[in-house]
């Protein structure tokens, strides 16, 4: 990420701000989060635990998948330290079925984290071209091309197109053009979309929606927001993420990729504030967009699945903590309650901007 920043002709003040924020983070301890005691949700159709940044523990019934696993305290050659500790410790993870890596940037592919997961991970999926960035591991590692699917224990994982860079070190941008992807996770009729990191690409999102018309939850990045000339070519802000959510025709959206590392100049809470403003402007119901704190969990009960956006959020901090994190609805009870019904738009979306 540092190299990426250095190699993109950022204004000196922006670069200085990012460097300063990272130096401060290096000298500080990551903010503690209160973690859930039990992350497994028996009876839930889908449960998403935000571990931080792009790391989500996805439960679909009895299957568990980790996305972009980052559990180390630093990324990018120990340069960038996390601002907030992880939402779950590695030793408290349930038995995993799979891990997915969306692309090769240091905040998404963490070799140190994979070391920690090595004994509990059976298989890792990478985008096409990703294998050259992989050391020897004991778990199986496989590349998946766009629109190709892999099946494991009833799970069907498909690589779906996104718009992002696949390189890791900078100079490899000259030849590493394919190793960035989104993922579609399907199991027993439930569907979860994970975007990884992406810019707004209407064509890609509509093509994905055409192939996967029943997306239950879309996990979408909403940062970095600023500066736009750096962020927009490869990242979604809140408004664009909402547009992607509409394009995908998903029932629920869970935002990610914010307030975990100092990878931009956005102050804490800025990305979610922008998301809320865009939700109001675009008239998107708060029942459909679930902003989690790190360590918080979104649970979609089986009973609520077919009827629309009925879901619940669990926070280790309870409702007070949820309010502090700015989420609209939290409860700390079991995954059974439902909220209210709303209808979905029949057309894919309104045009972006």
């Amino acid at each position, binding site marked *: 990420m540092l190299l990426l920043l250095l*190699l993109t002709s950022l204004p000196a003040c922006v670069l200085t701000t990012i460097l300063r924020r990272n130096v401060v983070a290096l000298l500080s301890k990551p903010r503690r989060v209160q973690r859930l005691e039990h992350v497994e949700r028996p009876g839930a159709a889908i449960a998403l635990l935000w571990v931080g940044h792009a790391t989500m523990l996805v439960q679909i019934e009895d299957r568990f998948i980790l996305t972009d696993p980052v559990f*180390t305290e630093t990324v990018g*050659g*120990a*340069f960038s330290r996390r601002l907030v500790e992880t939402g779950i410790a590695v030793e408290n993870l349930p038995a995993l079925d799979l891990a997915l890596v969306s692309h090769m940037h240091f905040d998404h592919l963490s*070799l*140190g984290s994979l*070391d920690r997961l090595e004994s509990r991970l059976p298989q890792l999926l990478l985008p*096409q*071209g990703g*294998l*050259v*960035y*992989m*050391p*020897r*591991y004991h778990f199986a*590692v496989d*590349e998946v*091309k766009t629109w190709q699917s892999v099946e494991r224990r009833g799970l069907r994982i498909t690589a779906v197109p996104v718009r992002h860079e696949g390189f*890791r*070190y*900078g*100079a*490899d*941008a*000259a*030849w*590493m*053009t*394919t190793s960035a992807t989104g993922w579609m996770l399907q199991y027993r009729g439930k569907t979860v979309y994970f975007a990884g990191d992406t810019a707004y690409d209407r064509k890609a999102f509509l093509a994905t929606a055409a192939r996967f018309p029943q997306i239950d939850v879309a996990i979408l990045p909403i940062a970095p927001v600023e500066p736009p000339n750096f962020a927009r070519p490869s990242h979604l802000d809140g408004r664009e993420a909402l547009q992607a959510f509409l394009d995908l025709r998903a029932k629920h959206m869970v935002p990610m990729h914010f307030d975990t590392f100092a990878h931009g100049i956005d102050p804490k809470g800025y990305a979610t504030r922008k998301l809320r403003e865009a939700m109001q402007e675009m008239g998107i119901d708060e029942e459909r967009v679930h902003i989690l704190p790190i360590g918080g969990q979104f649970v979609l009960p089986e009973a609520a699945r077919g009827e629309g956006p009925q879901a619940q959020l669990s926070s280790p901090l309870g409702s007070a903590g949820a309010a502090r994190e700015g989420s609209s609805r939290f409860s700390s009870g079991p995954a059974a309650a439902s909220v209210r019904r709303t209808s979905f738009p029949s057309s894919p979306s309104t045009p972006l901007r």
Partner: protein
Amino acid sequence: MAALSLLLWTQGRVRAESMESAPSPKLSWLWLGTQWLPSPEVALGSEGSMVGLRWQITPLLYTFGLDPRVARWRSFIVEPLARHAGSIELYAAPELFLGSDGAFLLRPGMRVYLPLVEHGEALSASLGISYQRIRESDAAALELGLYFLFGILGVQVSHTPAQRNPAQTILTFSLRYF
């Protein structure tokens, strides 16, 4: 220079065992530009101390730290992980010592990289041997290195036990990108 250009152009062909889908490194302006960045160094020897600059090229490298399905051979363009996750490198290092008694040194050598933290991306070490000839003085040198931040930053110490050598011990602050 023509030979070097030819080698650069054809270097991808060394990757004979490469996976069918694996993209091959390509020459880029960014890579080419960064190869001119020198590493500062200080030499201590029979004539006192000298300040110098070192450049490094890798005609051939065998990596043993990557996934077994990935091609093992690299030539000139070497990704940091391929080098620092574990590799054996044949290198050539032109070195220029500055000052009125300046000297030029061309050092061919071989080096083994070993990963220490996060498969070498955060920290790796090297052990090497090289031949150096400076002001009619021939010697074999042993070298130790330590590298951080994907190998971009590092420290190398080379030492030759030969007497009356103008560059008996060289301390290099290694700056290397790819």
